């Protein structure tokens, strides 16, 4: 067994005196019970996942006057800049905490000025370099018992770090010297394939990690797991993504929940031919939500190994793509609901469950609502797991990929209606003009299309090239999830309405995988799908710059059909607008109240010669990195794309909508698209909004906005 190769000691220093504690608060009985409405103590504002704060200094009358209060550039937090900053910071006691940079360090900043108070980064060498989820991650967790304050975060190399929130120093009494190795004590031996093709224990290269923020509830740290992109897995065998709870004081493991059941456990028989024994993945990579009063943890579980081919895991595959409620103290399963049987579309459960106390037909219901890639908002009684409105098992199309196992039915919520497109049918194709629509019909004729749950096609050079899908791998609603407003009982959620994903499978070449099929296009070499950030973290070696010998372009015949060229028509998207929306969905009634196209009409559409003379309403933008913030009166979210318009120079806008109507009431310019979801807090009588921006030539930056005025 290799040892964990921590090449250098952790860097940790106090860069300044921690900000003075300006706010008075009452000592809580245990961590996370505090609920100060002017702070942001957890990734999603609170453990209910709301992304809501009842603040109103920034409102419809002044949103457009927002100014940059301070900014924190993350380039130096790691040995190379990062262009994909996805974090949402925390704010507690006048200090902003965040993960940042290609190193994924934890930083503490003065919440009023942005001054760096401390930074803590871990050098993980080969273990960090081979991590499946690199770069800065989405955030961290704060905990206090009223005396001590701690910050917890998880490194790319999958180690849970406990820091003193005041100094950034490792806490010696937590784990081993402030570190819990998450590749250990996992009811499995984390393994990797060696050079001889053997599956062997390997803590350095063994594939498992996470990019989301840990969560602390009642002194228990909750940790999920993530893996590489699963479209072209090397093997049907992989490590499993179990969920665990750890003691916030000692780092000791308190419990584990087997997202893939072990022999003898409930659900094992939903994996035929013993496939639960070798199938992996099935992690909890999105944010975890907790109801401390009920003592329940809500786990959104992802797909099992093989995103698009499940022939090696016949059966429904519990708890793949299921919402599972487990006991906060023991990890024992209380209830579960599988949203997708035998997953084949990479739908995962991509978003944090939202806890909502609602009134349905005059009766109070403690509910949990789950936004999804497939555009359904699934709503359950969170005590019992019973659907608030019926979820019907309806027959779905059976595919014909050799060796695949198909579920004859899938669950369909009857309420609320789907809030984004989840199938490709002629009525969603571009229709600015009849000619454009006809061309779109011609383009899709080479694909298999259909409604939600249309099965993946085996790719054929003569067609179908693949199944053309909406509401699958990209979503719909992806990792940013939604917001919940406890005042109006509305969910606010962004969704991509035009993120096309072609899903085709081809026989897997032996050198690529031991699976029968992986994602691919007939006639083309199978390309290993890599996730964003792989090999881009600070531990990845900087390659030597050897001059490359130019290679001759392969003949067109060997390249196979270029399917991506068919996904547009004359420089326009194949799918008609709106390309991206924010929806307000009322949970008392199960109805969509309003939908707003989110984002400027892209330049390529506004300036397209094929549309000259046509009046095109605001289209919104295709994107899957947009998260929302809800305040007393506003829903706030930034554009996911850069535009240059008559109204503003090159940039992206942070927008505010009236939360009751969906009307845009203000916007403020940003130098780059929103890539991490916004948060807000009050400090010394001033409201701030922080948003992470990055992309293209713009490296990661946290920007804090506030209103002009006397300090």
């Amino acid at each position: 067994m290799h040892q964990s190769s921590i090449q250098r000691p952790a860097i940790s220093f106090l860069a300044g005196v921690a900000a003075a504690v300006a706010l008075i608060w009452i000592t809580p009985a245990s961590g996370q019970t505090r609920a100060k409405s002017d702070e942001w103590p957890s990734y999603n504002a609170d453990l209910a996942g709301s992304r809501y704060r009842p603040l109103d200094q920034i409102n419809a009358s002044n949103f457009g006057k927002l100014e940059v209060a301070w900014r924190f550039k993350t380039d130096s937090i790691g040995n190379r800049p990062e262009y994909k900053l996805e974090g949402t910071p925390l704010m507690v006691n006048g200090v902003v905490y965040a993960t940042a940079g290609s190193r994924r360090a934890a930083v503490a900043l003065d919440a009023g000025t942005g001054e760096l108070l401390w930074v803590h980064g871990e050098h993980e060498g080969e273990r960090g370099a081979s991590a499946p989820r690199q770069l800065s991650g989405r955030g961290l967790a704060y905990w206090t018992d009223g005396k001590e304050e701690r910050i917890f975060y998880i490194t790319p190399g999958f180690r849970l770090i406990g820091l003193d929130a005041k100094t950034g120093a490792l806490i010696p009494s937590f784990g081993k010297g402030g570190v819990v190795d998450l590749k250990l004590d996992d009811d499995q031996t984390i393994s990797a394939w060696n050079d001889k093709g053997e599956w062997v224990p390997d803590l350095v290269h063994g594939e498992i990690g996470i990019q989301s923020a840990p969560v602390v509830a009642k002194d228990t740290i909750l940790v999920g797991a993530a893996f590489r992109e699963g479209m072209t897995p090397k093997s049907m065998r992989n490590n499993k993504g179990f969920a665990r709870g750890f003691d916030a004081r000692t780092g000791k493991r308190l419990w584990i929940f087997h997202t893939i059941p072990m022999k003898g456990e409930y659900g094992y028989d939903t994996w035929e031919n013993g496939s639960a024994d070798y199938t992996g993945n099935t992690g909890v990579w999105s944010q975890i939500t907790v109801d401390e009063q009920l003592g329940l943890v809500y786990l959104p579980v992802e797909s099992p190994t093989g995103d698009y081919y499940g022939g090696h895991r016949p059966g429904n595959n519990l708890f793949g793509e299921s919402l599972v409620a487990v006991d906060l103290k023991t990890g024992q399963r209380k209830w579960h609901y599988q949203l997708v049987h035998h997953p084949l579309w990479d739908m995962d459960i991509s978003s944090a469950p939202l806890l909502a106390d609602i009134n349905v037909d005059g009766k109070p219901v403690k509910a949990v609502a789950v936004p999804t890639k497939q555009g359904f908002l699934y709503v359950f009684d969170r005590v019992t797991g019973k659907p608030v409105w019926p979820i019907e098992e309806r027959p779905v199309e059976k595919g014909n990929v050799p060796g695949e196992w198909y579920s004859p039915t899938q669950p369909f919520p009857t309420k609320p209606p789907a809030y984004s497109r989840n199938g490709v049918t002629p009525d969603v194709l571009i229709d600015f003009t009849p000619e454009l629509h006809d061309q779109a019909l011609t383009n899709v004729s080479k694909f298999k299309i259909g409604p939600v749950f249309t099965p993946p096609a085996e790719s054929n050079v003569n067609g179908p090239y693949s199944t053309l899908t909406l509401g699958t791998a990209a979503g719909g609603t992806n990792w940013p999830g939604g917001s919940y407003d406890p005042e109006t009982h509305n969910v606010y959620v962004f969704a991509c309405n035009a993120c096309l994903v072609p899903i085709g499978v081809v026989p897997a070449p032996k050198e690529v995988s031991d699976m029968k099929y992986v994602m691919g296009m007939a006639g083309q070499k199978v390309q290993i799908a890599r996730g964003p950030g792989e090999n881009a973290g600070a531990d990845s070696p900087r390659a030597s710059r050897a001059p490359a010998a130019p290679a001759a372009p392969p003949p067109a015949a060997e390249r196979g059909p270029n399917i991506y060229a068919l996904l547009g028509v004359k420089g326009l998207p194949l799918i008609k607008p709106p390309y991206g929306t924010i929806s307000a969905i009322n949970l008392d009634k199960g109805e969509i109240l309003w939908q707003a196209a989110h984002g400027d009409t892209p330049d390529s559409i506004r300036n397209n010669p094929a549309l000259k003379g046509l009046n095109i309403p605001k289209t919104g933008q295709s994107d899957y990195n947009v998260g929302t913030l809800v305040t007393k009166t506003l829903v706030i979210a930034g554009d996911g794309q850069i535009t240059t318009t008559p109204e503003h120079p090159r940039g992206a806008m942070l927008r505010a909508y009236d939360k009751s109507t969906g009307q845009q009431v203000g916007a403020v310019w940003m130098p780059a698209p929103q890539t991490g979801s916004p948060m807000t807090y009050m400090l010394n009588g001033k409201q701030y909004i922080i948003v992470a921006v990055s992309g293209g030539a713009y490296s990661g930056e946290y920007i804090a906005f506030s209103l002009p005025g006397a300090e």
Partner: protein
Amino acid sequence: MKVKTTIVALVACTIIGVHYSTLRAQSSRSVWDGVYTEEQAKQGQGLYNEKCSSCHGDTLMGGESAPALAGGEFLSNWNGLTLGDLFERIRTTMPQNRPGSVARPANAQILAYMLSANQFPAGKTELSQQTEVLKEIKIDAQKPNPK
């Protein structure tokens, strides 16, 4: 003596003036001014197929987790920036499986191919491999009106 000084001063002014106007001319160059050669783009296509196409697609139209490098959305994103900005992003972070492994001349060839795929005209001068020089060439998504 006085005359001599004046002449020196005049010559200096002229030199500075010429240099200044050269700089001005350079800073107003854009991707529409024939800033790469066809040969360079052809070499770049081979390199692109080897280094980039597995993620960005063989005709630069993007893939599962990589954006398109040609077309409207790509040009919107880079409109108003310079080729130096784009060159540095490619040079320091790509290809994703071995960032920084491609040398400057090869990166310039790949960039030339991307310009050609985006329908910008070729010219007689090779695209520079120097970032500072490339920062003087602006990316304009829209073709400027003839003057």
